[in-house]
């Protein structure tokens, strides 16, 4: 019973967990968005076999639980391919691919949202496909995609809580440890939930600012 009270050190533990969660979230977001851009380029240039591979992979990733994907990478891959896998590596790989799958769909629909006439006009002016993508499509597509992408990121922040199941010391895992030691689930889980909530709100406000910035050239005339 001696160690069942809360101690000041628990705050450091919580901050530690928050740091791990945030670090993993940032890393997977950067890798995931990069991968999604690669996937989008593959489908934009309609590279024969790769396009089908990307479509099949993203469909599979979108239609299965992240938890199962984590188990497949963390428990399955080492047994099948005889590779070493640390919890952090497995978590980074899985969440990055998962982010990439959803971001890819958003980016593709953003490209599809640009008027076909504009592209036809650019082709008439003799622009190459790369020039069309970088000069004409991407500025408009970015303004379209930023809202859904911020929504996706807030969702992915919550998905990172699942990595506690394979033993990464993130915020949820710290919550588990504190819960088992103090046996005060209400206080512990409320605090953990509040930390996630505040982080998500900060993320949303930053995203809103970026969106406003990207959209300042898009004048919405109303319907």
């Amino acid at each position, binding site marked *: 019973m001696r160690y069942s009270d809360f101690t000041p050190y628990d705050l450091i533990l919580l901050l530690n967990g928050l740091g791990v969660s945030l670090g993993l979230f940032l890393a997977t977001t950067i890798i995931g968005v990069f991968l999604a851009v690669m996937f989008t380029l593959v489908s934009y240039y309609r590279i024969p076999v790769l396009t089908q591979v990307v479509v099949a992979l993203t469909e599979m990733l979108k239609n299965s*639980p992240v938890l199962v994907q984590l188990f497949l990478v963390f428990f399955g891959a080492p047994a099948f391919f005889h590779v070493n896998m640390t919890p952090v590596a497995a978590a980074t790989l899985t969440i990055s691919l998962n982010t990439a799958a959803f971001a890819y769909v958003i980016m593709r629909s953003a490209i599809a949202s640009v008027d076909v006439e504009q592209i036809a006009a650019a082709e008439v002016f003799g622009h190459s496909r790369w020039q069309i993508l970088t000069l004409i499509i991407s500025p408009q597509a970015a303004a379209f995609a930023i809202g859904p992408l911020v929504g996706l990121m807030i969702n992915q922040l919550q998905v990172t809580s699942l990595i506690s199941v394979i033993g990464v010391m993130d915020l949820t895992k710290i919550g588990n440890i504190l819960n088992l030691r103090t046996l005060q689930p209400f206080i512990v889980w409320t605090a953990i*939930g509040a930390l*996630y909530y505040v982080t998500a709100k900060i993320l949303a406000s930053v995203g809103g600012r970026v969106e406003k910035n990207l959209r300042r050239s898009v004048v919405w005339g109303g319907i």
Partner: protein
Amino acid sequence: MNRLWRMLEPYSGFILDGFLLTLLACICAIIGAVCIGAAIASLRTSQNRVARGVAFAYADIFRNVPFIVQLFFFFYGLPELGIYIGAFETGVIALSFSGGAFVSDVIRSGILSIDQGIIEAAKVSGLSRYKIFTKIVLPIAMRTSVRPIGSVLINLILTSSILSTITLNELTGSAKIVASTTFRPFEVYAMLLVLYASLTYALSAAISAVHRRLNRSMEIGA
């Protein structure tokens, strides 16, 4: 493939049990989520400021806190309050609450998209406010929001795998046991991936059918 089947065959009944438990949990949670979602959505569009504020806070909190944290909150917290229920019931309650927050968002935007003229016409016809809401507003809102609700429900099925963390042996939980008895985690989890994908495909086909049925009067040439 044949060798894989021979290895998994003794466990197929066990996996099937898990599959049925997942199915049962999802059906209960879907019903709960749609009911809670409709109730919260009607509060969020009400004239009463307090009701609106409470409903908004509910949806905001349940959408911005990870499901696993909510689940642990219920699983460890409810016994503190003297409510002793099993892991299955806890899981269904948590899934319904968190699903309800997302469903309420969809139904709310369905309600807000209704033409004001329809409501005015109903008022002129002398219908009570309750009748207007249940007989006119809600059916139209449900009809327009079938597809977005469908994607929320698919997400709910995928989220149900998290119930394995509170000792519930649903599909993921039983697959975990099989993986650790056969020492073939890769094959087992790959099979699990395919099972979940087929479950979500089945649900999206069902949603399309419901969408067609509810919107049958909208079809051109119908």
